[in-house]
């Protein structure tokens, strides 16, 4: 049984990427985090196109909204439009607390919307919570 969790992090800010990686390194469960820096790469990764031909299908996607090129909402819409990608839980992980952003995300069938918390400890608790729920608790369709 594979105990490591495959997570796709879509985030253009290296500081944020590093912080997430730092926090998840000390998580109880082993997480294998793949990082892409924009929406186009995210879709290519999920569709195993180009350089991502041998990419592993992630069990969870952490999607930032504010991305260069295709933004988070557009990536989400594309994913939910493709049946073999629609079953992957997508957690919107954004610095925005704007009501419209949140509403739009849920309308596009995001699994949940989480605002990036301030502080390392808060971030650790948040991410462990997300991972614990979606990988440990929630039932997901078989890949």
């Amino acid at each position, binding site marked *: 049984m594979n105990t490591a969790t495959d997570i796709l992090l879509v985030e253009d800010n290296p500081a944020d990427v590093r912080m997430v990686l730092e926090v998840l390194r000390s998580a109880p469960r082993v997480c294998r985090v793949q990082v892409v820096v924009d929406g186009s790469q995210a879709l290519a990764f999920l569709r195993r196109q180009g350089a991502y031909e041998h990419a592993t299908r992630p069990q969870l996607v952490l999607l930032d909204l*504010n991305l260069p090129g295709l933004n988070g909402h557009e990536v989400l819409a594309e994913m939910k439009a493709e049946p073999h990608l629609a079953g992957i839980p997508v957690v919107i992980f954004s*610095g925005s607390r704007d009501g419209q952003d949140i509403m739009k995300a849920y309308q596009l069938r995001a699994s949940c919307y989480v605002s990036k918390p*301030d502080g390392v400890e808060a971030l650790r608790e948040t991410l462990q919570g997300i991972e614990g729920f979606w990988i440990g608790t929630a039932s997901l369709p078989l890949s």
Partner: protein
Amino acid sequence: MKAPFYRSFYPASLRGRLFLLVFLAILPALVVVVYNAFELRQTGIQMAKSETLQLVRLAGAEHDRLIDNARQLLLTLAQVREVRAGDVQECQALLDELLLAYPAYANLGVADIEGNVFAAVRPSEDFVNIAAEPYFKRAVEGDGFVLGDYVFPKGSDTALLHLAYPVRGRGGRVVGVVVAALDLAWIQVLYREAKLPEGSSYTVLNRSRVTLTRFPDPNRELTGQTLPASPRTPHPPSYYLEEHAREFTGRDGVRRFYGFTTLGKTMGDRSALMTVGIPVEVALAPSNRMLRRNLTFLALAGLLAFLAAWLGGSAFILHPVQRLLQATRRLESGDLTARAGEVKGRGEIAHLASAFDHMAAGLQNQFEERVRAEEALRELNQELESRVEARTHELRRSNEALEQFAYVASHDLREPLRMVTSYLELLEKRYQEKLDQNAREFIGYAVDGAQRMHRLIDDLLAFSRVQTKARPFEPVACDDILRHVLENLQVAIAEVQAVIDSDPLPTVQGDATQLSQLFQNLLANALKFHGEEAPRIQVRVRRVWPDWEFSVADNGIGLPMEHAQRIFVIFQRLHARDRYPGTGIGLSICQKIVERHGGRIWVASEVGKGSTFSFTLPAEGQAAASGEAGR
């Protein structure tokens, strides 16, 4: 008010008045004509009366002359020898000769003392023995000349008057009587010669009112009849025996002017009454004719005058006046090009028309000027509107920019701050043993600064949201708002053991979310800046037409009044941050909310005593002064 009585027949129209004038002009002529006719009528009456009197007078004179002649004749005859001798043949021859000389006598005769007529020019049954006749008896008694009465001889319809004179023989003894008879045929001759007008009449009555002769009497019905007594001809007719004239209706039903006289007046006899009548109709014919003719002329003249008034009035008065009237009505109905025009001449109407035209032209000019002014105003307005539109467009763009800024502030500005705080924390945690006290302190300041900036961004966002997240106004019950706010502030109230007292609050027109924020900010300030004693906060309201004026008063630390304006400026603080935390955004937001609702906010305060924040809000149902969109 009741109209004066003359209004009912005083004509209102010009034509009516013109006709009234014409009538008034003709009236004197009418009066003159009628008066003339009256005069002429009087003259006619006078003339008729005098004519009849003249004739009866003439008849009286003729009658008396005839009788006098007869007396002379009889007197002479009585002296003739043959008569005195009673010679029948000689007497007859003499009488026949006399009759040839005096054919006017109806008869001449001689009778003896016994009354036997032995000589007569017109022998008749009545004239055989006259002993019974009154005139014979009186003559025999020696009375001298005897004048008898008018009588109708038996079987005759011609009245005769007998005159007698005694014949004396030797010794003066009466031996016989000579007799003459006169008829009234002479009157007919006299009447015919007088040539009285058609329809005239004459009548002779004897003392017994028997009609002796009459003209006209075509069927001889009236001759011989006794005239019945009547109020007009009383009996004895003493008064009308005097010569006079008067008017009455004759027995033939014709109304005449009659002249009266008695015959035989000079002999003191008065044996007959004579009247001559001229018909009233005939006498008045000239005056009536003249009246008719004059009235006809007058009527024609009047007709011409009315016609002239009609035509002239139409041409010279009514037509121009009606044109003027029409022009006035057109002007009244708004046609400013209306002109009386073409009313020429120098009269009052022409003056009036020209004055009207001037007035109309003046009005038209004024109107056109006004139209031009309005046009200019409209253009100006349009320009203003387009400028306002441009400005609005600009404002909308800047509003959009502000919203964009709000988004950026909420998202993009927060990201780097979060990085700063997160990595500072990571640094502090991971390298704890390697950092000295100073380093940890420095990191603390950096984290604090970042966190404060975080709050400033949040507050700035809240401030901008007063505009960008505005909702349309609706009736808001302030009591509900206050209850909700007190629930929110429950912990803070309990902490400082504050006492809050509120008036019953009205319903106002506004944005519920923003009003909650307003009350919450003010109450939170009152709690925050409390003094030594437990805070007492009073929420009051009063009506300041047309708005409500609210106030929140506390017994806190107060503030110097020279700062009263500054406290509403964004991020303005009066106190050290470590004593009273906060960014200084609360009152700025309060001001912005109140201003958006068309009200104003101000503070009255005394240091150490407390502060009272007051603000006004529009009453329910009242349109807010704010130019808020979305209503």
